[in-house]
């Protein structure tokens, strides 16, 4: 049985209320943290080895250590969860908002933030209501605001709603959005908002799931967290399983202890495919990631294990495509997504995504030619030269270089399927 960290309370009735949270040990970690020195909390987080749960997988402790020591510095929680097929933060903000708030407050104290923000994507109407209610409750309880629990530490926490833009998950775009502007990613350097972030001040941006792990780490110690998982993949992770699978859902598993096969086929997890079908492809880590075939099913769900095999664990999502689903259609839809969500600042991304989408669409509907395959690869190569993994970057942010992943994967793995579309002038699959 896997230790449950972030989903320990999510099945309790009224799990989102303060009373439920307090009955189950809530805010004890914050009390403990406030009795510790901030640097000792940071040391626990470093010892935990926790990797950021947003997608890039950067060590949280290391990120914190890069924060410039200015009396005005900010903590921003990234809850813009928009990577297609990722729905773990959706669960955490609706089912256990106090855990997120407690983790945010502990982190704010540890890094000495002068103010903290939780940025939630606007489409989470219920999530926004749950988190705002929880913030209201926490203020009234004395966990946020002036002189928290008599510790002498004060801080404010503000919930910020987004308004529908995938790109705002990119941390510098999120900061721009929080400043009340278009969500345009900032030109790098500076590479990290830890130097210049919100309002030009040093800022740490951490994911919702990362923050939700912090109370457990403080209660149980960084070492206990690091004893779960293996290698650099410490602790547990919330895997969001979707697509052609019997029981899609969020599953919290010890990192690197289970394989894709376990996640998809275990009766208590994904419970396998629909009768008579087989795995054609899996997309790990969100639609920005290169695809795997069934030969990778036994790969452990670990950061480095997946990276070494040529893709990424990314946001922790896993999409299953079975042999009754069309790979061309799936790749076309992913490209359409990038085309719609490109912020438009950089030409390779803005124009390239549209060209690829058009070509993919004409192949899918039976109007493609064989030379389109080379054309697709050529356009992809212009966005991410060399088509390597991780990709080369020609744009301000990583949205652009993420576009080729699905197209190149689909062509490499399912060239025959493309050719059938072209030869038979249509999609051979029944939708």
């Amino acid at each position, binding site marked *: 049985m896997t230790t449950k960290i972030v989903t320990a309370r999510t099945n309790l009735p009224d799990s989102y209320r303060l009373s439920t949270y307090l009955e189950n040990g809530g805010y004890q970690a914050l009390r403990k943290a406030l009795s510790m020195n901030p640097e000792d909390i940071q040391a626990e987080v470093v010892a935990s080895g926790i990797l950021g749960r947003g997608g890039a997988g950067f060590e949280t402790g290391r990120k914190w250590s890069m924060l410039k020591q200015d*009396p005005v510095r900010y903590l921003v929680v990234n809850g813009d969860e928009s990577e*297609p097929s990722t729905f773990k933060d959706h669960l955490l903000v609706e089912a256990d908002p106090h855990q997120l708030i407690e983790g945010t407050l502990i982190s704010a104290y540890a890094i000495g933030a002068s103010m903290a923000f939780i940025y939630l994507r606007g489409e989470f109407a219920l999530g926004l209501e749950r988190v705002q209610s929880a913030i209201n409750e926490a203020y*009234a309880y004395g966990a946020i*605001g002036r002189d928290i629990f008599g510790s002498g530490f004060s801080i404010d926490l503000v919930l910020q709603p987004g308004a529908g833009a995938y790109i705002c998950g990119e941390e510098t775009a999120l900061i721009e959005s929080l400043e009340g502007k278009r969500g345009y990613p900032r030109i790098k350097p500076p590479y990290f908002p830890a130097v210049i972030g919100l309002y030009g001040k040093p800022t740490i941006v951490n994911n919702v799931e990362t923050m939700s792990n912090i109370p457990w780490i403080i209660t149980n110690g960084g070492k206990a967290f690091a004893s779960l998982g293996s290698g650099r993949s410490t602790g547990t992770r919330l895997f969001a399983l979707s697509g052609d699978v019997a029981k899609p859902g969020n599953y919290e598993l010890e990192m690197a202890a289970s394989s894709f096969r376990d996640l998809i086929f275990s009766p208590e997890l994904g419970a396998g495919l629909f009768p008579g079908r087989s795995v054609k492809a899996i997309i790990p880590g969100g639609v920005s990631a290169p695809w795997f075939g069934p030969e990778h099913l036994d790969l452990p769900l670990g950061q480095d294990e997946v990276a070494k095999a040529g893709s990424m664990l990314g946001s922790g999502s896993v999409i299953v495509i079975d042999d009754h689903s069309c790979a061309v259609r799936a790749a076309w839809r992913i490209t359409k997504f990038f085309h719609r969500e490109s912020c438009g600042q950089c030409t390779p991304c803005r124009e390239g995504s549209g060209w690829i989408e058009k070509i993919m669409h004409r192949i899918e509907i039976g109007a493609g030619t064989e030379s389109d395959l080379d054309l697709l690869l050529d356009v992809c190569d212009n966005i991410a030269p060399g088509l390597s993994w991780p990709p080369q970057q020609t744009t301000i942010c990583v949205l652009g270089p993420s576009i080729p992943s699905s197209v190149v994967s689909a062509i490499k793995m399912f060239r025959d399927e493309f050719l059938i579309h072209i030869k038979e002038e249509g999609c051979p699959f029944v939708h």
Partner: protein
Amino acid sequence: MSFFTSENLERAQVLLGLYPEKRSALMPLCHLAQAQQGYLTKEAMEEIAKLLEIEPAEVFGTVSFYDMFHTEEVGKYLVSVCTNVACLLRGGLELLEHASDKLEVPVGGTTEDGLFTLEEVECVAHCDKAPCAQVNYRFFGPLGNDSFDQLVEDLRNDQLTDSVPPHGTLSRVFREAPSLVENEVIIAERVAMDQARQERQAAKDSNGGDSK
């Protein structure tokens, strides 16, 4: 005449006081204006500009970036069908086609009675309930043709007014917290925290030096 009602103007003042820089209130204010009127009129955006002390063009320019801000009238119920890959695999595109037939509007259109606007959206993070849709950003799924039709009937018959407020109303929970801790208090605390930390570090370094 103010665009905002007096109740919303009070909420707007709370929002303006929440941030180190006023402009951060832009998006919350736009949501507030949409909650009041269902979409963003020129008058609303001009008033928001005035409140933020920026040019109206800066508000228009920001608003136009975000999918959830509507500068043209939207139906009472905005039906957003996801067709991104996880939903696509489970029939999202077919659901969208069915929705268009059922509501008798093209994607992007509004029904003649002004009740429904249909849109195709990107992933809304509800993939374990694929194919899914949102109505005014409230989740529904998994949806088949029959359950979609039932949903539409329930909305038409005002069966879901508690769970699905009219378009524009996003969060019905407002910040109740007292006003922010004064900036000077926070800064004084942080300067003291950083100083204490440096002193601990210095003490540790000299102790470490002694023991070697």
